[in-house]
């Protein structure tokens, strides 16, 4: 079970979306698939066609930079970060 932490910028876009939730998945991509199932449209806010993570969306699995195919099996912490950028 992955313990997923989401950025504050997603919360107002999807009513009811918590900042922290547990997700059963094998990869980061599957985590996002699970979220998409409950909150349609969320994948587009994190991923570009390809699919690949958006340029300013960073994902860390157990504090290591991750990609969509990074495994999240077992007790894993997944942090989704809206990178510090912009002005």
């Amino acid at each position, binding site marked *: 079970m992955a313990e997923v932490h989401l950025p504050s910028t997603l919360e107002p*876009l999807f009513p009811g979306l918590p900042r922290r939730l547990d997700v059963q998945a094998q990869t980061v991509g599957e985590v996002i698939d699970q979220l998409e199932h409950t909150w349609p449209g969320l994948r587009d806010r994190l991923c570009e066609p390809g699919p690949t993570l*958006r340029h300013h969306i960073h994902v860390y699995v157990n504090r290591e930079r991750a990609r969509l195919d990074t495994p999240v099996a077992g007790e894993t912490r997944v942090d989704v970060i809206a990178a510090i950028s912009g002005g």
Partner: protein
Amino acid sequence: MPRTQLLIGTRKGAFFLESDDRKTWELRGPFCEGWPVYHMIHDPGSGAVYAAAASEWHGQAVWRSPDLGETWTHSSDGIAYDSEAGRKISKVSTLAVSDGRVLVGVEAPGIFESRDDGQTWSLLSTLAGQPGSDTWDDPSTQPPGHLGISALMFDSEDADGLWAIVQGVGLFETTDYAQSWTPRNRGLRADWPREHEEVGFCVHKLVRSPVDADRMYQQNHVGMHRTDDAGHTWTEITEGLPTEFGFAAATHPHDRDTFYVIPLDPGHGRTMPDGHAAVWRTRDAGSSWQCLDSGLPKQDAHVGVLREAMAIDSEDAPGLYFGTSTGQVFASTDEGDTWTQIADYLPAISSVEVARTE
């Protein structure tokens, strides 16, 4: 009670300015979570408002409010190119709505359509095969701003008619709802070498007279132009204006010969010439021009006005409105003779549209 609504798209979200009398205005916003809003429009058919917005973090989406900003949804479902084709969407630039069809223009140049109130989208056209289309996907050939399709306009005379501006390339018309396109740039000026005879023109803004569908005006990168034959040929009408450059333009709702434009410094500053804010009006289809600056700052106003940032309503005495790159909104209810500042301290303004609501 009827109200005038100004829809203000800014670099940090959407706002509304609303008024019962076009004198006292109430500001609401920001909406769209502070995403940069490139264009915001009202659908008189459904009463909904649409905003084309793009977040640096979360990508592009079309936002929709059915109740003038009280509630919002957003979707980019279907606004994507086939990833194997190598084209990517960097921005949703412009919107148009008519008869249950919502269109959004994007970069790389393309037009997506929704027929379910913006919930889902599908590709309508990329104008593939048009002269210039072989290179317009290349970012190195694109003008700054990277708007792709910078404007869309439904043809008020023909349900299958549509006009599209490809930024830095030119104006195109379709009469069979995007099955085929025709460049409509004959007579335009270009001060640079062009690879194709029919394109290579920098059309900034196209407007059409509501009382004469053959009469259109355009602000071009180099000059103001007018057509009297629905875009088949263009005639330059720049003489008498302080510069040939600008973005915003508006047509009078009741008089085919009256038209408004905001000339800007043609250099890279692209602000009011000499810091003197003014709207210019012609009442004779461009034969002569009047400077309208009463109530506007006449010095030290180094502000810009972008292509979608001026609007005109359709009242008997039409109201004119424009928003600036420094967050002011100005209004006139006497055809531009005098102006009043009705908002300040907004984020940089990208678009101003006006709607009359109950």
